[in-house]
C-alpha cells in the first residue's frame, strides 16, 4: 500500500518542520506550565506527604498546612485515648523571624516536634542528627535558605525570635509553597521561643493508626471528641492545602489560561499549515477523486498527516520540556511530569492536530474533481 500521506508530508520538509514546531511549542508550554504548577502544588503539601501521619487534627477551618492556628496541646491526650490510634503527637508549624548577621530579617517556617524520627521528618538530612535537637537551643535548617539568608554552615548561629540558636543540621527539599525555608526544632523549644502565642498550645496533632484500624471510624470518633477541631486524612489534608493556593490565588487561573492559549496557538499553527498544505495539494486531491477515490480516502490522508504531526510534535515538545528541567531546578522550582500527565498531553496533542485537520476536511469535501482538467 503506497503511503501517500506520509510521503506527501515529508516531501515538503520545511512545512513539516513548521507544523511540528507549532505542536512542539504548544506541548512544551503545557508541560512547563502544568509541570511548574504541579511542582508548586507539590511544595504546598510536601511536608504532609512525607510526614507519616494517617490523620491530621487541625484547628477549625485551617486553610492549609502553612497557615496554622493554635489550640490547646492537651487535645493530644484525648486523641491518644481513641481506640484505633497507635500514636499521636503535637506538631507546631509556625512562622518565625530570623535575624541575619547582616542585620536583615527573614522568615522561616518552623516545624517543631518532640520525636522527629517517629514521624519521618525531615526526610532528606544532609548533616546532623535530629535526636540532638532536644538537647539545647538547636535547629536544623534547609539548604534552600541559602538563597534568602545567604551562605550558612552547620555550627553557626542565627537569632530566631530574638534567641540565639545553633544550626546543628542541614536538610534538603524542605520548602513551603511560598518558598519560605523550613527549619526543624524541638517542640518545647518552639513553645519557649514564642511563649505568648505557643505556651501550652499546638497547631496540629499527628495521628498514626493502629494496624487494621478503620480510618473513617477513628476519624469520626476524634471529630466527635474534639468538636472545635477538624480532622483530615492525609490525602484530604494535602488536597485541602493545595486547593487553597489554586482557589485563593491567581495561580490556578493563570495556569488554565496559559494552557488554553498554548493549545490555541498549537491548533492555529497546525490548522494554518495543514490548510495551506491542503490548498497547495488541492489538485492532487482532485486527482485522487478523479481516479476513483472518495472524500474518505482524502480524510484518511489528512488525518494521518495530522496524527504524524501530533506525535512528532509531542516527542519534540516533551524533549524540550525535559531539557528545561535542570535549568528550572537551578532556581529551586520543580517541573513535575508524571506518566499520566505525559499520556494526557500526548492524547491532547494528537486530538489537537486532528481538530486542526477538520478545517481542511471541509475544504476537501468541496473539491470538484473536474479541476484536474484545468491548467
Amino acid at each position, binding site marked *: 500500500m503506497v503511503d501517500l500521506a506520509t510521503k506527501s508530508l515529508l516531501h515538503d520538509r520545511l512545512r513539516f518542520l513548521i507544523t511540528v514546531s507549532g505542536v512542539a511549542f504548544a506541548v512544551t508550554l503545557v508541560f512547563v506550565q502544568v509541570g511548574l504548577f504541579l511542582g508548586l502544588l507539590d511544595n504546598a503539601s510536601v511536608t504532609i506527604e512525607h510526614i507519616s501521619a494517617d490523620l491530621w487534627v487541625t484547628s477549625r477551618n485551617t486553610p492549609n498546612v502553612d497557615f496554622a492556628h493554635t489550640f490547646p496541646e492537651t487535645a493530644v491526650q484525648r486523641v491518644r485515648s481513641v481506640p484505633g490510634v497507635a500514636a499521636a503527637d503535637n506538631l507546631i508549624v509556625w512562622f518565625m523571624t530570623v535575624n541575619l548577621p547582616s542585620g536583615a530579617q527573614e522568615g522561616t517556617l518552623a516545624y517543631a516536634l518532640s520525636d522527629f524520627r517517629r514521624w519521618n521528618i525531615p526526610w532528606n538530612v544532609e548533616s546532623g542528627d535530629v535526636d540532638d535537637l532536644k538537647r539545647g537551643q538547636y535547629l536544623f535548617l534547609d539548604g534552600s535558605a541559602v538563597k534568602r539568608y545567604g551562605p550558612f554552615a552547620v555550627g553557626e548561629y542565627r537569632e530566631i525570635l530574638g534567641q540565639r540558636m545553633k544550626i546543628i543540621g542541614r536538610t534538603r527539599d524542605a520548602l513551603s509553597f511560598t518558598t519560605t525555608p523550613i527549619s526543624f526544632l524541638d517542640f518545647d523549644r518552639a513553645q519557649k521561643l514564642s511563649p505568648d502565642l505557643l505556651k501550652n498550645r499546638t497547631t496540629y496533632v499527628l495521628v498514626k493508626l493502629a494496624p487494621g484500624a478503620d480510618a473513617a471510624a477513628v476519624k469520626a470518633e476524634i471529630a466527635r471528641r474534639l468538636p472545635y477541631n477538624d480532622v483530615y486524612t492525609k490525602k484530604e489534608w494535602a488536597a485541602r492545602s493545595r486547593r487553597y493556593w489554586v482557589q485563593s490565588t491567581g495561580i490556578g487561573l493563570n495556569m488554565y489560561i496559559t494552557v488554553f492559549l498554548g493549545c490555541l496557538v498549537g491548533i492555529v499553527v497546525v490548522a494554518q499549515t495543514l490548510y495551506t498544505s491542503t490548498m497547495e495539494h488541492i489538485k492532487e486531491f482532485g486527482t485522487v477523486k478523479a481516479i*476513483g477515490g472518495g472524500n474518505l480516502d482524502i480524510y484518511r490522508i489528512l488525518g494521518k498527516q495530522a496524527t504524524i504531526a501530533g506525535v512528532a510534535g509531542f516527542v519534540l515538545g516533551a524533549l524540550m520540556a525535559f531539557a528545561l528541567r535542570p535549568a528550572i531546578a537551578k532556581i529551586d522550582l520543580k517541573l513535575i511530569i508524571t506518566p499520566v500527565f505525559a499520556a494526557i498531553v500526548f492524547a491532547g496533542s494528537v486530538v489537537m492536530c486532528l481538530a486542526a485537520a477538520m478545517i481542511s476536511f471541509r475544504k476537501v469535501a468541496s473539491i470538484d474533481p473536474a479541476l*484536474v482538467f484545468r491548467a
Partner: protein
Amino acid sequence: MRVLEAMDVTKDYEEGHERVAVLHGVSLALERGEIVALEGPSGSGKTTLLSILGCILTASSGRVVVDGEPVDPANRSRLPEIRRRSIGFVFQQFNLFPSLTAVENVEYALNVKGAKGAAARSEAERVLDAVGLSDRRDFLPRDLSGGQKQRIAIARALAGRAPILLADEPTANLDSHIGAQILEMFRSLAKKENRALFIVTHDPKVRSISDRVLQIRDGRVAAGESETVGAALAAARGRGQAPPLPMTRSSAAL
C-alpha cells in the same frame, strides 16, 4: 462491444441569474478497442463532455452508459465506483503525485481501485514496462521529462485494466516529436489491450492514430455521429423499449 454511450446529453450551468447551455443533445458511442478523437475549438464543450463521460460531472439531461452501467445523476455516490472500475484518465498536466516515485504513482492508483500488496506492485511494474519506463520506476516526477511523465500518466490509466481510457489533450505539454511518440505508444497499447480510447484534443496528429474523428462546435457534436446514435435510440423506442433512464436529469457536479 460497446463500452461507452452518450445519448442526447445536455449540460447547462447556472451563471449568476442565467443558465448557460454547454452541451446540446450530444450523442456518441465507443466500442472496445476503438480510438476516437474529439476535436473542437476552446469553449466548444470538449472538456465538459469528457467530464460527463468520465463520471466526474453528470449530465443535465440525456443518458450515459459506462461499461454497461447506466449513470444515474441522482446517485452521485456511485460515480467514484464507476470511475474506479471502468475508467482510466490521462490529463494534460499529467497530475502525478510529486512525492511518489513513478512506480508508486501507478501503484497508488491501483490501491485506490482496491488492489493491494504484491498484486498492485506487479501490475504497476507491468504497465510501467509496457510504456517503456521500467528503468525509471524509482524516479520522482521532478526528475523526469515531460514525455516520461506523460508515459507514467498513461501507465496509471492502463493499470487496473479499465475498459475505457479518457485523455484530455495528452500532447499539449509535449513537443511535437515526443507527442507523436506518446500517441503512437498510446494507440498501440489501447489496441493491444482492447481498450476504448477517447481523446479530446487540439492536436491534428491525433487524427493519424484515431479510428474516428468527431468535431464539436458550440456544444454540438458533428451531425454524423449524433444522428447514428440518435437513430439507434429512436429505433429502440420504435421497438417499444423504453429508455432505461429518464432523458432529463438535473445537473450536478460531483
